[in-house]
């Protein structure tokens, strides 16, 4: 209100402190109360700190105060501490031992008392002290109405700098106060901590503090609102200074010179210049455009109007905008933009690059990027229409009737579960392949819709495939979740397992593959159990083993009276197993001695393994179970027959029992390339023989490429390996699989918010206080701090009220 008188007393402000046992190194003068009051100069502000005893609390405060002394001095405020010598207790000293009090004096008149916990750091000290001194320059408001009143009062007179800070005493509050110290006589500063006021002004994100500049001075028509410009940068003293400077600069400058030479205040402030290139003929329109751009870019860039006609230097013909950035090493940009919005866009998009860096915690962003291949592929495929109608969708009502009426395969899945949705596609492929040929009904239940059916069927994870056959318990499918394996399972389940063979003739047909010709492609081995009719127990065990292997291996049982014909033909004693390998056309016999279901299953499973298999994605797990190093022959296409022969011969002679010999066809299993690449770093010439010791040490050895794969060479090499004489070409990494990326740490976010909330508690109290009232008080009025409601309202939140009671007592000058 009284800018002139303000600057007078601003010249002399001091800040005083009082303390008794003050030992740490504060540079400010240490005084006794007596001497202190005598040193106070009229009109000079002093922050005074009175202290009784030293405690951790006080020493912390003193450190902060000490640090604040210098910046306070810059504003002409002195800092003093006062020893409350016991025999001459001043009323400011208070009575309690660890009492901390700080007062702001102007001359010898107390202006305000601060509970020291409001002065928790340098920022808070500066903010509070300046806030107390600049109460005319900085109007504190709590409602939109207050703001409008000020706005209306100042129309045609002064411009307004309005800011919202989250709390009093924060760094941004300090920044605003420091700016007010400099510009307070020129502009009316208005401050609020009420988010509601801010919300009613602009739609911007209110998470962070704001400063608006209101152009009220030019508004002559009182019904017109003042134009408001939001400062986009964070509230720091420098940014505010810069912002206000640009607000002061002319909105639009007309230039005639070389755009690379022109300089305005903007460049000095580090802001870019935007030249709107116009010409004399369209001057009016160009100027309007330029003004529009200038308003848009106010505070972000300087806008100049450049008339092509008046220009001596050449600029590209189609250029209508020139941008010159403040950074010295950047080139002047000549742009041809089709729309004025693009100017803003161009400028902001390139400017933002810098600001973006702050947010650029790339790891944070990646958290939200899908790195699960199954989830991602299923998601990407979500719009494809599957021929779901090929399988029957079952519901709570139809489930039981359906699975009891016909032999059924049921897929239990959940529409939201990616793995089961990926498998659903394979399942549909099976349905396509079986279309019209199978007696087995293919059905599905979406457990997301029919939860109770799934729970009742004991399905608690997804996907699950179960086969329901009349008179039998449902069987869960435990094979690979893929078309081929499921198809095999369904096909092999067409026959009972074990199948009951009734004559020697039939047994022979069964063994040579004639009986179930169409199944041979699914099961390369047929097993026949031979029992004399009286071997009831052995038959039972075998039957159980057969049903266990159902869908994976074809089994049959023969126990007629003439079973001896078969046993003598294959020279085996009863009970026995005959294994027919259809591919090789061989029949093996194994006597069963004292064996149980589990052993029979084991025998058959082991027998179904090949001596020198082609390893594939599907069968690798089966061979890994042997827990032996793999001897892999990598081959680009079919296997070299010579190699095959060599290895088979070695295997037959049991030379290869310590490893699992196998070969890999890169044409059929292209992922093998990835394996080779991991071993060699590049794709080596093929074929290539490798030993991978997965189960101990992860060592990979390569058969020397300059040697021929012969029996001798291979044996020698393997011996050397065993003896540890070869060095591995690669040791496979042994790390555990850790989380690929961090998760959101909500606990920390909550903690951060909670501590911020605590910090805000103090200012919240201030909000409750009636700042206007103290505003109205004359600065020299003795009762200025009589109702220091910072303290009273704080009592609502704090039970430490004893010393707060002190504050409520009116203060008068000593």
């Amino acid at each position, binding site marked *: 209100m009284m800018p002139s008188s303000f600057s007078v007393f601003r010249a002399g402000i001091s800040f005083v402190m009082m303390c008794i046992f003050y030992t740490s190194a504060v540079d400010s003068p240490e005084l006794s109360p007596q001497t202190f009051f005598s040193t106070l100069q009229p009109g000079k502000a002093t922050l005074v700190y009175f202290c009784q005893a030293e405690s951790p609390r006080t020493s912390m405060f003193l450190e902060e105060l000490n640090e604040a002394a210098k910046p306070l001095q810059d504003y002409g405020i002195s800092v003093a501490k006062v020893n409350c010598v016991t025999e001459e207790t001043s009323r400011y000293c208070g009575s309690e031992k660890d009492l901390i009090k700080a007062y702001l004096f102007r001359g010898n008149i107390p202006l305000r008392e601060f509970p020291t916990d409001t002065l928790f750091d340098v920022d808070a000290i500066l903010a509070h002290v300046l806030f107390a001194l600049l109460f005319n320059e900085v109007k504190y408001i709590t409602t939109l109405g207050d703001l409008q009143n000020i706005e209306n009062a100042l129309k045609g007179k002064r411009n307004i700098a309005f800011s919202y800070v989250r709390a009093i005493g924060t760094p941004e509050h300090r920044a605003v106060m420091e700016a007010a110290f400099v510009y307070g006589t020129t502009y009316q500063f208005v401050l609020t901590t009420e988010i509601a006021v801010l919300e009613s002004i602009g739609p911007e994100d209110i998470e962070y503090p704001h400063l608006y500049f209101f152009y009220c001075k030019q508004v002559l028509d009182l019904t017109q609102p003042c134009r408001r410009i939001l400062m986009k940068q964070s509230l720091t003293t420098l940014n505010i200074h810069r912002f206000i400077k640009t607000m002061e600069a002319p909105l639009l400058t007309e230039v005639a010179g070389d755009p690379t030479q022109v300089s305005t205040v903007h460049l000095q402030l580090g802001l870019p210049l935007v030249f709107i290139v116009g010409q004399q003929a369209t001057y009016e329109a160009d100027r309007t455009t330029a003004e529009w751009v200038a308003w848009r870019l106010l505070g972000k860039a300087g806008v100049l109007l450049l008339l092509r006609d008046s220009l001596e230097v050449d600029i590209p013909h189609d250029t209508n905008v020139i941008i010159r950035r403040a950074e010295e090493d950047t080139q002047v940009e000549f742009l041809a933009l089709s729309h004025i919005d693009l100017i803003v866009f161009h400028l902001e998009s390139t400017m933002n690059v810098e600001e973006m860096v702050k947010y650029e915690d790339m790891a944070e962003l*990646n958290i939200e990027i899908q790195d699960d*291949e199954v*989830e991602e592929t*299923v998601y990407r*495929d979500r719009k494809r229409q599957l021929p779901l109608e090929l399988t029957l969708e079952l519901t*709570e009502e139809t489930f039981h009737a359906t699975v009891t009426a016909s032999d059924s395969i049921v897929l239990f899945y*959940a*529409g939201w579960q990616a793995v089961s949705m990926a498998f659903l596609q394979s399942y549909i492929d099976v349905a396509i392949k079986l279309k019209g040929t199978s007696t087995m009904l293919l059905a599905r239940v979406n457990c*997301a819709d029919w939860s109770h059916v799934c729970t009742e069927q004991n399905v608690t994870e997804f996907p699950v495939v179960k086969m329901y056959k009349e008179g039998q318990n449902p069987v869960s499918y435990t094979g690979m979740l893929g078309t081929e394996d499921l198809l095999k399972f369904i096909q092999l389940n067409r026959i009972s397992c074990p199948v009951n063979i009734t004559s020697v003739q039939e047994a022979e047909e069964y063994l040579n593959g004639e009986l179930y010709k169409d199944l041979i492609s699914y099961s390369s081995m047929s097993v026949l159990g031979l029992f004399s009719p009286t071997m009831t127990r052995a038959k039972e065990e075998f039957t159980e083993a057969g049903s266990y292997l159902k869908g994976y291996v074809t089994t049959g049982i023969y126990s007629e009276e003439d079973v001896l014909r078969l046993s003598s033909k294959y020279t085996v004693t009863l009970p026995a197993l005959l294994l027919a390998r259809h591919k090789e056309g061989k029949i093996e016999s194994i006597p069963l001695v004292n064996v149980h279901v589990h052993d029979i299953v084991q025998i058959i499973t082991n027998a179904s393994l090949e001596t020198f298999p082609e390893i594939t994605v599907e069968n690798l797990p089966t061979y890994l179970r042997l827990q032996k190093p793999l001897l892999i022959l990598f081959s680009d296409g079919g296997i070299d027959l010579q190699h095959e022969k060599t290895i088979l011969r070695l295997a037959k002679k049991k030379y290869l029992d310590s490893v699992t010999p196998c070969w890999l066809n890169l044409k059929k299993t292209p992922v093998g390339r990835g394996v080779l690449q991991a071993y060699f770093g590049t794709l080596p010439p093929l074929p290539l023989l490798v030993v991978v010791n997965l189960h101990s040490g992860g060592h990979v050895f390569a058969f020397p490429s300059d040697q021929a794969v012969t029996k001798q060479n291979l044996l020698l090499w393997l011996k050397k390996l065993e003896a540890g004489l070869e060095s591995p070409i690669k040791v496979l990494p042994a790390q555990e*699989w850790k989380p690929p990326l961090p998760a959101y740490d909500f606990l920390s976010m909550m903690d951060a918010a909670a501590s911020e909330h605590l910090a805000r508690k103090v200012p919240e109290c201030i909000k409750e206080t009636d700042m206007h009232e103290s505003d109205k008080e004359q600065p020299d009025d003795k009762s200025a701090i009589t109702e220091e409601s910072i303290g009273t309202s704080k009592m609502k939140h704090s039970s430490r009220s004893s010393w707060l009671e002190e504050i409520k007592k009116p203060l008068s000058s000593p």
Partner: protein
Amino acid sequence: MGLSTVAPLWGAPGLLLTIALHLALYLRPAQAWAPVHRDYCVLGAGPAGLQMAYFLQRAGRDYMVFERAPVPGSFFTRYPRHRKLISINKRYTGKTNAEFNLRHDWNSLLSHDPRLLFRHYSDAYYPDANDMVRYLSDFAERLGLHVLYNTTIAHVTVNKDRGAWNGHYFILTDHRGQAYQCSVLLVATGLSVPNQVDFPGSEYVDGYESVSVDPKDFEGQNVLILGRGNSAFETAENIFSVTNFIHMLSRSRVRLSWATHYVGDLRAINNGLLDTYQLKSLDGLLESDLTDLAIVKDHKGKFHITLKLFMEEFFNQSSDAIPLPQDNNDNFAMRVAYDRVIRCLGWKFDFSIFSKSLRLSSGSELSEKYPLVRASYESKGSRGLFILGTASHSVDYRKSAGGFIHGFRYTVRAVHRLLEQRHHGVAWPSTEHPITHLASAIIRRINEASGLYQMFSVLADVVLLKENATTFEYLEEFPMQMLAQLETITGKRARHGLFVINMEYGRNYSGPDKDVFFSDRSVGHMEDAWLSNFLHPVIYYYRHLPTEQEVRFRPAGWPLPRPSALHHVVEDFLTDWTAPVGHILPLRRFLENCLDTDLRSFYAESCFLFALTHQKLPPFCQQGYLRTQGLVGTESLRQHGVESGLLWDSATMGQNQGASDQRPGDHGPGGHPLAPGPPVSPFNSNKEEL
């Protein structure tokens, strides 16, 4: 005591005599020295009693339900007086998932019989109370529950006996003098005593339980209603169109259920009076402590409100002499004379039949109408005595739905599970899965579980990790305040860490004075999930089972002690938490970081590659592929995988060496191409001090 010890004496007289004696014993009025024994006695055949009977029946337990009335659910034969239930009978949700639909069915009891769903009993969204009576009868009858009707238990006491399950038997004596000896007593008697406030003139007040429900009786009258709950508003709703005006007086402000998210507060269906009050139609709401008031009847039979204080001074004087507030304060709000005063102050538990030896006491000030129970619903005074149903609401009064059918049907089940473990060694039901199914197990439950949804922040699912966290056990609907006692209650071991899956509203979102429609009330981004306001899943991870102390002294406003790590699944407008990136991905990352492992799923081909190029495999490959249950995938999915850059492109594989670092095959342990920055610090390792 009776039968079993007497029996050997009967051995001599022979079979016939024994039978005759038996018959005689059964037929003649039993005497106190020969009580009938039951393992479980249930008091009251209301919804909670029947619900417990159902579970006991299914488990094949020895139980009996005692019911005073000739039918089940007799409360509903009279209440609510205006017959409209305010529990939602939502017959359509657009979903077929029966478990999900129970989230929106507030009336059905739990059973295996889909015919016993309330929607088959009424078409009304707010059904008629008679339909509830019919439903409860059917429920008891169709399921063949053992209910002894017309049996009023007049006295309950306790008899010490070392052989008893709980060290004592509960002795129930009915109105005929027949005694019953029970190992466990399950009290489901509801709140049956109308709350009354004692003040001078309270004799002039009509009670909700007996006031006329015929609007004609109120035509042109000035009516004062005491109370501000649903019964008060229900009463007002019935008559406010014919009265001169209704004034409603209560101690504290009205609490609107849509602001508090508590179904026991005033429901919008009953709030017509709020509308007329705020639209200045003479009706009005006032707040004052009823105990300070007094009612004076004048010579015309009209009622005047005055202060108890005045009455005391002018004791024994004629009513017209008693000073009224308006004598001094001529604009006193209630200076008008009333034709009727109606009391609608709710009900409280009937403590009268319980002997002192049971030590069944009432709760704190806030919930003094309820008996005091633990979070396991067991009385604090006597072991083996459980409070079920509405009377058990002290556990979650003004918080969740435990006082209502749609809430206590689940808490009753929890009590039954506790009893099965305690007395029959049947562990809390659970399923065990490989760790790779953890995210799915949680997603399934948060999307359909009705118990979690209805009893939010009271019942929670618990995931118990097994050694090395390769498998886990999933337990449903455990009373979360009993977390410290989990091992005793469930018979499970929790030695390797656990997750608790709860549903929560945002802190500071619900409250009688809260604006629940403020503009930024919902968050959409998963990073802001912890700011979610609407009911949403919250998952707590504990490395060790919290102790009783930790549960009791948990931070204010927290349903559980501070966990090692915490995850919020962002609130969803459709309560459908199945979005792959918005819901499932952040959950997976949370679980991964708690367990310090990689929980991604992989196609068989990727597992094949890992199997031949790494010594260790990610859990998904270990638990699936290595057991020959790998996910093979189809060509079109493969194609998407290649396009997304997550899968190997076999066409270019091995040819472009420079790009090999970017390959998914190198996603392996330690070197994720997307996260070259600082090493991931899982919750598991570095949050110990917090």
